């Protein structure tokens, strides 16, 4: 019993030792493991602090871009051509909308007449952050907007908001020139910070496109604190966006509108140029479109109409379409002849046609007809211009050759872009021998010189070019730099460096000829003359778009009004005024208008009359002239 007790107590002592050792080991282990925790904490919180700090900062902040306002486009006197107006919208935030369908039903009960494409909007919502506002509807009226404001408590997550949208008060009148904006194309989005804006727009044509970089301004930026769900907590700081630069055009808004109204129902263009400064006061094309419709997406039907219409409403006919100048080229051909020493008093007999040898035809000759079948009889230069005798100019053209004609035309601005501005501007064509060989691969033929003499054949010019050429013809031969963007230039300085484009003596003579064509009996535009203090003068042109066959000539030429529209002749008029102190040149082009005297000259008369009556800018020019 005792021995067992001793044994057991010895044993007990041993196990006691074991247990104490185990407890001690456990304690040491726990302390050791705690040291690992401590070391890990030191690693995370001290050693890696900087890394995690920046990660935390990235977590909690986000940037929101602030859209700049687009610059305004104004006319010469500061009247608005394009600006931004308030756009009443309804936005919604998915993260604040409990049940989007419920919210939409509530919205619908407030504005029942507004249709919303829910599927499309939910698709957009799916792609963006839960707390980014998404546009539900825009272009609300003030009434609808106030209704929403009054009922905002019923609309969980949908709320009214005021944005901006581009507005063109002139609507169709300036559509092509000013252009329009709409959403960025894929090409434009590439590498473009603006593509990150929710509602990014860029100019598509006209000034909106050419001056897009100036107009669009600078994007601002605000830094926000957000929570894990992207909800904005507060604004940390912001860099304001900068509004785009305003662009002032040389256009006079009222004149432009007047011109556009004159083209009502017609397809054509009017360009009015200040002959001293080269500023274009009007650059109109009709028919046009309402640029406001492009802003928030155009309906399919509207778009189809614009792209498929025979009258090409999307084309700026003043610069983006070119036409054979017809008889409006004659003053320039005449100038070329004068420079070649041709005697303007020499009479050439017009018997209705001009014949050249042509072995390819049966008769061995080829006839070139004057528009007056019976002929004009003997003509000197002044009479030939006044009455627009074709035979006289066939003779002239043949005498001086195509290259001389082309040289003069180019000198006055044909065959080159008028403005260093528009992406959509065409150059027109001033043909010569080298041009034909280069472009078409054939040799020049004499018959082509003859038709070039009356502005037909390969000749092509834009209305803007015709107005510029006329301006330089009547301003004393000064080379002017055409402008559509207003620049406050010092005219006196500019004049010094300018050499005359042609002999003043010749130019004065040609002005007389143009005066006679409009204001003297027998002139082609005599019926469209203005009587009174201010008069104007100009040359008509009728450019054929079809070939008249010999057979048709014998049977009698079909009258324009009996032809389908697209086969009728273009009616053109170039002119200037006032006569006693010229300030403006004009070109009017009526597509398939029938004739220059019938379609274009009467419109030129109205526009000139408007200019004189309104005294548009005449005072301003007197000031800068001095």
């Amino acid at each position, binding site marked *: 019993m005792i021995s067992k007790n001793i044994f057991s107590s010895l044993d007990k002592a041993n196990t006691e030792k074991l247990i104490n050792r185990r407890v001690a080991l456990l304690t040491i282990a726990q302390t050791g493991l705690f040291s690992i*925790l401590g070391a890990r904490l030191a690693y995370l919180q001290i050693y890696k602090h900087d890394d995690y700090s920046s990660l935390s900062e990235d977590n909690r902040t986000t940037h929101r871009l602030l859209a700049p306002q687009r610059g305004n486009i104004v006319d010469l006197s500061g009247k608005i051509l394009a600006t931004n107006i308030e756009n009443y919208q309804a936005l919604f935030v998915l993260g604040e909308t409990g049940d989007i369908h419920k919210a939409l039903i509530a919205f619908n009960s407030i504005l029942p007449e507004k249709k919303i494409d829910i599927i499309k909007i939910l698709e957009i919502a799916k792609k963006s952050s839960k707390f980014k506002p998404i546009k539900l509807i825009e272009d609300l009226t003030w009434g609808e907007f106030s209704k929403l404001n009054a009922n905002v408590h019923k609309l969980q997550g949908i709320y009214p908001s005021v944005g901006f949208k581009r507005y063109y008060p002139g609507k169709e009148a300036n559509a092509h020139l000013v252009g329009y904006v709409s959403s960025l194309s894929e090409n434009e989005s590439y590498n473009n910070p603006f593509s990150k804006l929710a509602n990014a727009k860029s100019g598509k044509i006209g000034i909106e496109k050419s001056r897009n970089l100036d107009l669009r301004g600078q994007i601002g930026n605000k830094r926000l604190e957000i929570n*894990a769900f992207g909800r904005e907590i507060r604004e940390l700081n912001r860099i304001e966006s900068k509004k785009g630069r305003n662009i002032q055009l040389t256009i006079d808004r009222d004149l432009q509108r007047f011109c556009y109204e004159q083209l009502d129902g017609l397809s054509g263009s009017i360009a009015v140029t200040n002959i001293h400064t080269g500023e274009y006061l009007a650059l109109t094309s009709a028919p046009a479109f309402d640029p406001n419709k492009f802003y928030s997406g155009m309906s399919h039907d509207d778009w189809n109409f614009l792209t498929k219409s025979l009258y090409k409403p999307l084309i700026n006919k003043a610069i983006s379409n070119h036409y054979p100048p017809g008889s409006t080229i004659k003053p320039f051909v005449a100038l070329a002849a004068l420079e070649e020493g041709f005697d303007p008093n020499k009479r050439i007999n017009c018997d209705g046609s001009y014949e050249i040898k042509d072995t390819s035809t049966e008769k061995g000759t080829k006839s070139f007809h004057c528009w007056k079948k019976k002929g004009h009889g003997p003509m000197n230069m002044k009479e030939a211009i006044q009455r627009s005798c074709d035979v006289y100019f066939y003779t002239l053209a043949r005498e001086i050759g195509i290259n001389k004609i082309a040289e003069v035309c180019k000198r006055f601005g044909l065959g080159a872009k008028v403005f260093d501005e528009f992406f959509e501007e065409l150059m027109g064509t001033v043909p010569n021998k080298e041009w034909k060989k280069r472009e078409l691969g054939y040799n020049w033929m004499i018959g082509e010189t003859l038709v070039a003499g009356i502005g037909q054949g390969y000749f092509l010019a834009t209305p803007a070019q015709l107005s510029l050429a006329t301006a330089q013809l009547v301003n004393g031969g000064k080379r002017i730099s055409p402008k559509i963007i207003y620049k406050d230039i010092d005219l006196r300085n500019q004049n010094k460096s300018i050499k005359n484009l042609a002999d003043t003596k010749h130019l004065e003579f040609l002005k007389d000829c143009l005066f006679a064509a409009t204001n003297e009996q027998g002139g082609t535009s005599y019926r469209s003359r203005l009587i009174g203090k201010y008069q104007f003068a100009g040359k008509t042109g009728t450019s054929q778009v079809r070939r008249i066959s010999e057979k048709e000539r014998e049977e009698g030429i079909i009258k324009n009004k009996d032809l389908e529209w697209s086969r009728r002749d273009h009616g053109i008029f170039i002119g200037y005024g006032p006569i006693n102190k010229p300030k403006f040149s004009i070109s009017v082009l009526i597509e398939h208008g029938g004739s220059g005297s019938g379609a274009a000259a009467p419109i030129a008369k109205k526009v000139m009359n408007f200019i004189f009556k309104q005294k548009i800018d005449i005072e301003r020019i007197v000031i800068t002239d001095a």
Partner: protein
Amino acid sequence: MPSFYQIRTSLSIIDRIREINIFLVCLLLTTFLFGLLSLYSVADANFDPWARNHLIRFVISAILFFIISIIDIKIILKLTYPLFVINILVLVLIMFIGTETYGATRWIRIAGVSLQPSEFIKVSLILCLAKYYHSIPIIEASKISRMIIPVIITLIPVGLVIIQPDLGTSIIILIGAGSIFWIVGINYKYFIVALLSACASIPVGWQYLHNYQKERVFTFFNPERDPLGNGYHIMQSKIALGSGGFAGKGYLEGTQSHLNFLPEMHTDFIFTMYGEEFGFIGTFLLLIIYLSIILVSFNLATKSRSSFGKYLSCGLIFLFFSHVFINVGMVMGLLPVVGVPLPLISYGGSSMLATMIGFGLIMNCYINRDTILAKEGFID
């Protein structure tokens, strides 16, 4: 009965109260206050919904701690097995009438209070094992025949908890039980065998894991794998701790936490938000406090003359330690995400109650350190 021990069988209530170790109580109180501070911050400087409840629960738990500390250890010894059986029955019961939350059935509502029986089974099992080893000759602990009962009474709660499913708690139960096995001197070879067989059973057990548990394990090994999915929580937690830096972002100033980048901020990830706001100074201080609690408790445990007291105290201390270690290791990305609360700081009534009961028992063992306890059952 050996008579050379100084016998202090009967202690008056006053004596018992006097014997309460004030230092440990202060440490516990301090830890709780850190919890209160953090929960106030989690609710964006609001007492509601968490801090107020936390305070109430602490008061209740503290009362329970106090009562358990001063009652007769023999009562505890007597109640050990019945309490364990009841607890097991409740665990079985919640399989049928439990409240399901986040796909797990862990809670039971008793008189309007939601309780998590798995929190209590941790303490109950330790008690049970301590009593069992107290009742057998300790040199026989390594005998196979002596290991059957403790292994069975360990595996029953582990099994019941794992099917809830609650991997974290079942691991904790295993660790707690393991610590008792270790202390009673079971041959270390068995631990090696158990560890190896556990490793071998991983491929088998893997199939029984829930998808979210597998994801958590994957995520642990590669948190950047899916930074917006499962790895998100761990990444955000590390960002929060790291960005807190040495001195912290300042109380109530934590951006990661207040902007909701952290998950479960009031429960499992509360240490992260604390660390973000108080920095390394704060987290280091808290670790020191936890370590102090553990070391002070061990000191108290070694004073106990009865093996029951020693086993019980050491087991409970290790249980407490494993909560802290797993939770803190988890939020720092050292361990996989398993739902283990941070004792006295995480919001949770059952956890708080169980922890304070645990310390009540440790204190009780200390107060009754000289009490001679008869070995029931297998008396030599």
